[in-house]
Each structure stands twice: as structure tokens, then as C-alpha cells.
């Protein structure tokens, strides 16, 4: 996956977690916590969804990288570059 595909995938996970949320004007540089008021349970879910969908293991110390869309894509790129998007 390239960066834009990884972004789409993360967006898909966010849609799954918060079906009532309008994500069309999500700002990539601003934190999810600020924009969507996600809490620690929700961040655990992003990690769990990545594990479920792509078998990516994210150690707890790395959760800080999932703060915003930009930082998440940045962090995931080396982990997901060899995954085909289906």
C-alpha cells in the first residue's frame, strides 16, 4: 500500500469505529482526539483493527504515533508498504 491507500484504510477503520461521524472534512494534521474526541478505548480499537485486518502488531509504547492521520500514516508506512490493498 502507498500512503494514500494507507490513509484510506485508516479512514475506513475510523468509519467503522464511529459510524455516525462525518469524516469528509477530517484534518490530517490535527489529532483524532481533538476532532473526534476519541478516548483511550478507541485508540485501542484502532490498534486492534489493524491487527485483525492486517496482522500488524503495534507495541503499546508506539500508540503515541496514532495521534493524527499524518502521524499514523507516517508510522504505518514501513509496516504496510508490502501489503496489497483488497
Amino acid at each position, binding site marked *: 500500500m502507498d500512503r494514500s491507500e494507507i490513509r484510506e484504510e485508516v479512514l475506513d477503520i475510523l468509519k*467503522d*469505529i*464511529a*459510524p*455516525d*461521524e462525518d469524516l469528509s472534512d477530517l484534518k490530517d494534521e490535527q489529532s483524532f482526539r481533538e476532532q*473526534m*474526541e476519541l*478516548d483511550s*478505548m*478507541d485508540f*485501542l*480499537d484502532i490498534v*486492534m483493527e489493524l491487527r*485483525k485486518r492486517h496482522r500488524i502488531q503495534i507495541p503499546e509504547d508506539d500508540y503515541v504515533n496514532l495521534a493524527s492521520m499524518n502521524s499514523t500514516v507516517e508510522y504505518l508506512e514501513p509496516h504496510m508498504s508490502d501489503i496489497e490493498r483488497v
Partner: protein
Amino acid sequence: MYDTIIIGAGMSGLAAGIRLAHYEQKVCILERHYTIGGLNSFYRLRGRDYDVGLHALTNVTPKGTRKGPLARLLRQLRMSWDDLEISPQVGSEIVFPGNRLRFDNNLDLLRSEVAREFPKRVDQFEQLISEIVDYDDLDDTHAAMSARERLTELLDEPLLIEMLFCPLMFYGSAREHDMDWGQFSIMFRSIFMEGLGRPQAGVRLILKHLVRKFRGLGGELKLRCGVKQMKVADDEVKTVVLENGEEITGRRILSSAGWCETMRLCDDGQPVVSRAPGRLSFCETIAAIDLEPKTLGHDRTITFYNDNEQFAWTPPDTPCDLRSGVICSPNNFEYGEPLEGPDGGGTVRITALANFDYWNGLDEEQYKLEKLRWYDAITDSAVRFIPDYRNRVVDTDMFTPTTIVRFTGHDNGAVYGAPDKQADGRTHLKNLFICGTDQGFVGIIGSIVSGIGMANMHCLRD
């Protein structure tokens, strides 16, 4: 071998099951009864649908709200706000002799009511609200302190304190005569600051959603499948023995059966932390009437009443406590279309404190007679506070503390479980955890949040 075995198909067990099945665990929920729901269930009697447990959902915030327990649980269960089809309450009231406080899903109504009834206490009430807003439910430093002590410091009007306690205790205090400050704050927010609502189809809609979701994710639900015993060795549960003799194994067990009840299932003798079961139980009368309650002039969603200046929150010496109660009409919510029974009528339910030992000690014949007698006594007591509907009744039913035992397995029919909660859900065994009423949160939203929280904390991180 299951990844997780869940005991009890109530709100907390089903919610936990959804979380675990969603993350591809092999999960089995064991329910001893023939139907799901536990304390919150539903039934059909002589052509009419009734709810048990649920009067209203608490914590009802509007669609689009991102904060609060309702928003959190919808995200965790991957449900949309619309799935629950919640209609808000019309408005409720707390009635004491000579005083009435109305409230709805906007705190400003309660504010103005307090200003009308207790004009000198407006500032003190604002101070209370700001303390509750600031209460952090993740920081338990002050959680266990006495709410009664804190309220006495904040408000110098005992009657107002009693009037605030009445609904909050009825809807969620396992502790007699008092509440933990943490529980008081959580309940105050959930009822007065967020609000009450109900799906038009009642609790069955919520339960059916949960079960459909759980099964759709591959979860297994076994009804009429009680647990007889858990065999313990090496500080963990090795085998779960079912009442039919079958033995199953799971890497973890999550039990919503209650603290004492779960401990009794373990075959290793006395629990490490023994504690007293709760004693607060209810009787509830249900009347189907031949017209909508509002036609009789009763338009309140919930009426909490107490006939003297002090509100007693302890098991009564009499079979039922006739001094106080909760009147609920499921018709009085803001539905798109009126809620109608088969003949266009409505429903009135009255809940009152009851003495478990009395009801448990009756033989079958006495039990039937006493139910009739106390149905009348409870209704006579309640119609002092709302328009008299007794000549419009077309069918009735009633539950007692022993009914609660039958459906929930809780000792003493204790609706809100043991007074001491196990907030982290841990037990003396490393793979056995508890969720539901005795973990800490009560009510429908509370139970669901408990199941989610315990599943996340103990069953998903490996």
C-alpha cells in the same frame, strides 16, 4: 477450548461477547434461563408486551454527541445511534409532601424547579452541579466517600438532599441509606444532565440487536445452560461444569453472575475476599389500562414519590415499602407515533422496595394471595401522587424479589447487587473476572459499559 467463556446473557455478558467475537475470539455465552436479558428482559402475557427491569435508558444524549457513556458504547459496539431508536422522555418528577421537582433532558428545567421550591439554595445547587461536572470517574480517589456527607456540606436543606437522593438511589444504589460519591456523581449526570429515553419497542429491541450482532460475529449463545461448578487448580479455572453434566474449557472466564454467586461456583472453598450480598430488592406492579395515561391527566414519564420528609433506602420491615416508589408509564415518551396496546390502552408500572425474606418464606398458595394483596396496597399508595387509574385496569401482573432471583440468580433478589463493588473485575484466580452489576456500573447503559470495559481490560490484551 474457547478463548473466553462468558457466564450470563444479560446486557454486560452480551456486550462483552460482541467485543470479543468482533476480534475473532471463540466465545461462548452460557445462560441458565430460557431467555436472554437477566434483570432486563421482556415477555408477552395475554396478548400484551411488557418490559421488566427497564423503565428508561439513562445517559441519553442527542445523536452526534461524542462524549459520555452512550457515545462510547455505540463506538465500542460498532452501533449507530439510530440502531437504538431512542425516544426522549416527556418529563419526570420527584414528589414529596408539599414539594415537587420536575426534570427533563435539559438540566435547566431542574435548575428552575430548585429555584422555585428552594429559592435560597440556588447558589448551593450550582456549586453541587459544578462539583459533579468536575468529578473524574477515572480517578477513584474520592469515589467511595459518602455522598450523604458531601451533600450535607454543600446543601443546608435536608429536604432537597432527600429529593435528589430518591431517584438516584432508586435507579442505582446498592448501598443502603447512602451512595458512594462516585456513584452519586455518575448517576446525577446520567439522569439529570444527560437524560432518559426509551426505544418504542422497549428493551427487546436493544437485546435483539445485541444478540443478532453477537451471533453475526460467530459467537455461540447457549440458553438453558447453567453453570454448576468451576474446577480450580493452579490458581485458575480449568474446567466449567454445566448443569447438564457437560464439561467445557476456556482460556478465560468472564462472569456476570455476581461476586458471591461466582465465588460459590468455584470448587476451591472460601473466596479470598468474602463480602456481604446486597439486600435491596423490589416488587413491581404492572397494570394494563384501557386508555392512554395522559387521557387521565397523567403525562409524566417517571414519578418518584415519597410520602414523608425522609427518604428511607433500606429493606422495609413490611413486605413492601408503601411510603415511596417509582411510577413509570412507557407511553409517556416522545415517540413519533403513540405507543398503543392491543386495545389502544396504556401501561402503568410501580416499583417499590420489598423485603426478600418475607417473599421468599411464603408457600405457593400464600405467595399468590400475598401478590394480590400487595398489588392493591402498592397501587393504592401510588395513586396518592398521580391520577387514579384503578377503574381503568384491564390486566395486571407483578414481580417480587423471588422473581428477580429466578431471572438473575442474584442472592436476596438484590437488584443492584452487592454494596461493595469489584471495580477492576479481578478475582483470586488469574483467568476469572467479573463484569456486570457487581463490577460497579448499573442500569442498562452501565451494564453494557461494564461488559465492554472488562472485555477490553482482561480478555483482549494478549
